[in-house]
């Protein structure tokens, strides 16, 4: 009994271009509405810019760009998931937030081998929910975007 409980993982979920993604709740610092983003010139396309979140400078990352998707047309109420990575604050821009789900770690499937490479590179696995699939994001790999492209 205690074993199954300890294997339960809570996920913060979010929608990006109609696909549900999950992030382990332990990695999520907060969820906020991204306002007044300052564009960073010369930055990689994935970087939407920087913003002030309660006195902290947060680097906003456009998840649509990160996933190679077309940009969102309606830029209002842009939600962001706050992540701490290497002592720095990042905000992952998503279309909208979903619920928090508690799932058993055992039921996670591996990333399907036919998943597009850039998606596979930042996914940790897939959950079969009742009505849809949820892709689990590997937060560190999502934020290591500078390195993988540099190496490529």
């Amino acid at each position, binding site marked *: 009994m205690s074993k199954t409980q300890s294997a339960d993982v809570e996920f913060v979920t979010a929608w990006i271009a109609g696909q549900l993604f999950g992030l382990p709740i332990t990695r999520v610092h907060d969820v906020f509405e991204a306002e*007044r983003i*300052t*564009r*960073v*010139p*010369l*930055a*990689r396309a994935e*970087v939407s*810019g*920087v*913003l*002030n979140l309660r*006195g902290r*400078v947060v*680097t906003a990352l456009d998840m649509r760009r990160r996933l190679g998707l077309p940009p969102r047309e309606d830029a209002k109420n842009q939600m962001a998931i706050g992540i701490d990575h*290497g002592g*720095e*604050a*990042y905000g992952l821009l998503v279309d909208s937030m979903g619920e928090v789900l508690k799932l058993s770690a055992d039921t996670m499937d591996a990333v399907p081998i036919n998943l597009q490479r850039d998606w596979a590179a930042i996914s940790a696995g897939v959950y079969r929910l009742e009505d849809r699939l949820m892709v689990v994001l590997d937060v560190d790999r999502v*934020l290591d*975007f*500078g390195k993988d492209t540099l190496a490529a």
Partner: protein
Amino acid sequence: MEDLLKEFLTETSESLDVVDTELVRFEQEPNNAEILGRIFRLVHTIKGTCGFIGLPRLEALAHAAETVMGKFRDGAPVTSEAVSLVLVTIDRLKSLLAELEATSAEPSGSDGDLIVQLEQMALDGGAAPAAPTGEVTIGSLAPQVLERQLRPGEVSLDDLERAFRDTPGPGDKKSENREADRRTGERRHPDTGPAGNQTLRVSVDTVERLMTMVSELVLTRNQLLEIVRRHSESEFKGPLQRLSNVTAELQEGVMKTRMQPIGNAWAKLPRIVRDLGNELGKDIELEMHGAETELDRQVLDIIRDPLTHMVRNSADHGLETPEERLKAGKPARGTIRLSAYQASGQIVIEISDDGRGLNISKIRSRAIDAGLIAEGDHPTEAQLHKLIFAPGFSTAEKITSVSGRGVGMDVVKTNIDQIGGTIDLKSAPGRGSTFSIKIPLTLAIVPALIVQSGGERYAIPQVAVVELVHRGSNTNLVEEINGALVLRLRDKLLPLLSLSQLLKLPKREAVEGAADAETEAFVVVMQVGNSLFGIVVDDVLHTEEIVVKPVAASLRDIKVLGGNTILGDGSVILILDPNGIADSIGATREERTLDDFSRKEATVEDAAKSISMLMFRSGSTALKAVPLSLVTRLEEVDADKIEFSSGRPMVQYRGGLMPLVPADENAKLRTGSTQPLLVFTDGGRSVGLIVDEIVDIVEDRLEIKVASETPGVLGSAIIREQAAEVIDVAHFLPLGFADWFHGKQGASHEKRKLLFVDDSAFFRNLLAPVLQAAGYDVMPVSSAKEALTLIERGMQFDLVVTDIEMPNMDGYVFAETLRAEGRTAHLPIIALSSTLSGAAVSKGQRAGMDAYVGKFDRRGLLQALKGASVDMQEAA
């Protein structure tokens, strides 16, 4: 025990550093009992503490060292070997301590080797047996063992208190002490009685946390101020003003706790220099000035290694051996001089030596080997000097243990760049080199200029900003050469970079209400190291103290960004990195240095060596060149707008018709696109020279190699490794207006005889045709002597145009000689010089010159000629 050990390690390693420095001083001043006393006490303390904590190995070693020191105190001669041995012992102690710190246990093993040597030394040194010397120092040492030693940088109230106590008898001893402090950069250690515990050891983390919090407070204060600014009748105004003041004071106070004297970074240098001197067989004196200058500890940490490296470099590469020095007529002892001072919000650190200076030819060949420059390049000396900062550069012939340690000047530069500093160097062969480093006082909070470009705001650190120039419609005209923006700033061209282009910002048409005049309206003139350039921005908003926050790691590869900050209104803006911008402007423009702009006293040689030439093509693929200063403006006109009037091309230009003249007989007008033109304007009339393409503006020495028979071409010159035809502007101007020059000559038909004296063939070639075209019968000669000979022979001249800077007899003496002769006493003399300073002009007047004209100021020359002609007519 953990804590005790930690405390012990900190204290002991600090003490050892002091011993290091003091020993080196002691070696030079063996009779200074005070220094010896201090060393002795420190070593004794270390020994005592080791014994107390139970570290037998360290204790034994310290004891042996102490014994030798005891011998010195008893009057044994202080030999270099003895000091070296003690220094080696200190090193051993240090390495043992390092191991102790890593493993929390005293390493096993024995130091018998050193102890035997030390004991031997003690035996040889004095007749008395090596006796424990503890009892000698009991009285004064007991408190010393327990007392906390001052940490470098701690504000010492003890010092102050002692100063009061010492007041009745401020003898020599005290001033000597001060001198010692200044030289070593070390805080004085209480050497009398137990001092009150007025200083605290505070962990660096605590201070850092405080600083972070103060930074946040500053931001919040700024935010509040911004809100109150918008509500003018706010009752918060008064209290907020107080809060603001208190915040400012708090900020200052906390900053102060972070400050440490730069001497802390220098503390190890005397020892290093001493060892280097021994190793290299050089006699080196290290002078240190301004050790008390305080720096933010973060900055200090970063520059510590670069400074050490540069001092090593000076000792290794810079200074010669005593024999070489004597041969060169210099004192055998070389000097390395370190100085630090504060100047306009920056700290300036200079490292200079009186050695051999940089070896230009060696740098050159090394740079060619390293592929930094090409075989045929002719970089200036300053450019060559700069190459030593290039990655992987080292001119050391052999890799010594001193130099070849994989750290080059590039690392030094990188470290200094990292803290927003700049490094510069001056070197004179045989006289030495001076490196000057300018670094900001602190990294955490900097004053910045907030500018706007492409609808976004950016912060530029004030330290790099020299001046702001408003782009006017008439003055401060920004011009373009093949896309490269330049600004005429006080007779020189300043390379400009549009911030929106640099940052690849989207074009601004879409932004509402942004009339053309409002965009790119300001030029922020910046200086980085020796480079001067301008950044074109849309607007300059205000200055603000900004708290620098680093950008995320994923953005750090963007070199032009130095960080970001939160402004008073809560928005995040990016901070530009002046170094990054300078780099992105590129090395090709770096040569236009501040010196170019500020140095008005350029010599003729310099001017002849290096002048700005406009390179273009016309009619063929061959390069053509014209001195830039002769060109009034560069224009591009719509080819469709070109009209023909009696077969001659014309274009409407500034409310008039401007005739167009092909720069080459093969040059053809373009159709259906824009036509580039070089516009020459004089006396309200303009002529457009039709060219195919404007290639570049280069600064290079210019020498006409092959004179030309072709009309319109002065000759061929090699400019930037390429052959170029230097065109004769004077040939083309009359082609536009038949009466171009004649118009100014009035009714006079008789050609006046003009004596033109200039030692430079280039200027004779350049100006003689201009003068001829202006209607004079020109006699060009290459020296004042030659000119005087002609006059002696009875040749008559109506006018003299003479260069000032000439070998043998300069223009002043020439003018005075002419004035002294009855026949030539009233001859109009026009001086031609690249030196246009007030002093030079008045000197010219005293020598009897009628006018003083800049060398490339053709228009000024013609006006002066006209003036002289009028005078002549009036006189007649």
